[in-house]
């Protein structure tokens, strides 16, 4: 398959546009000098990923990504950022000084993974485009064949959130507790 035939499909134009946006904002997530900007660029990356899921006809997962990640996880991140540092301007010392070896390592990771995927799958076509997976199918899979993993994941979420509250709450010293009781 040549590049001309690939680019002649309209869906690949959409893919290219979204992919460029995702790559740019992903790069900004790891290079931004402002912590809040990094979190907001992650929003752009996730929105682009949701667009890719729509192209791949995975509607439910795309909207779950928007709701759970952009809606909840990013808000948690922004809370974490706001709490752990007061000024929201530029700040120094977000990165380590020596960046050469990490850059080389990540390029090596990319080359290895991209080479392996292209080598293994080549020009294999995607089959069911334009025919969205209905939520019914997904719901039957989640509550049928995957009901035990589904319950386990729900339990993990509950345990993690209870654990998070337990870790993050401020324990009072005995003196403070007496003060509380007196009031």
């Amino acid at each position: 398959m040549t590049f001309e035939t690939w680019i002649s499909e309209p869906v690949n134009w959409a893919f290219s546009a979204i992919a460029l946006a995702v790559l740019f904002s992903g790069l900004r997530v790891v290079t931004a000098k402002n912590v809040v900007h990094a979190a907001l660029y992650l929003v752009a990356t996730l929105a682009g990923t949701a667009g890719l899921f729509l192209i791949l006809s995975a509607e439910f997962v795309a909207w779950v990504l928007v709701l759970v990640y952009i809606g909840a996880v990013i808000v948690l991140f922004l809370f974490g950022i706001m709490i752990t540092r007061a000024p929201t301007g530029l700040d120094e010392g977000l990165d380590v000084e020596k960046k050469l070896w990490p850059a080389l390592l990540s390029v090596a990771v990319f080359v290895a993974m991209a080479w392996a995927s292209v080598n293994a799958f080549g020009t294999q076509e995607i089959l069911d485009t334009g025919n969205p997976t209905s939520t019914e199918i997904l719901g039957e899979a989640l509550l049928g064949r995957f009901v035990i993993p589904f319950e386990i994941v729900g339990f993990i979420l509950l345990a993690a959130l209870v654990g998070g509250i337990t870790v993050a709450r401020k324990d009072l010293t005995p003196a403070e507790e007496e003060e509380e009781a007196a009031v």
Partner: protein
Amino acid sequence: MVVSQFLVLAAALFAMGVYGLLIRRNIVLILLSVELMLNAVNINLVAFESMIVTTEALGQVFAIFVITVAAAEVGVGLAIVLMIFRNRQSANVDELDLMRY
């Protein structure tokens, strides 16, 4: 559309996550890089799912599990970050050297 285009994009996102994980000093930014890597995995799962058409949408089910576990991870991770910040007034990983030999 071929499968490889999604896989190469996911590989690029994963590599960016690895880079961010290695160069960042701030714990919150390290967690952001981990999210980037998990996101790359989700793209791979959904792309594979649309390549092998199954009746149960297996790849999407796994992507939903990954999203849920990632949400749990962020909850616990940020609670720990909060606790560390409260005790040490810093969110930089290289200053947390209490257990370093």
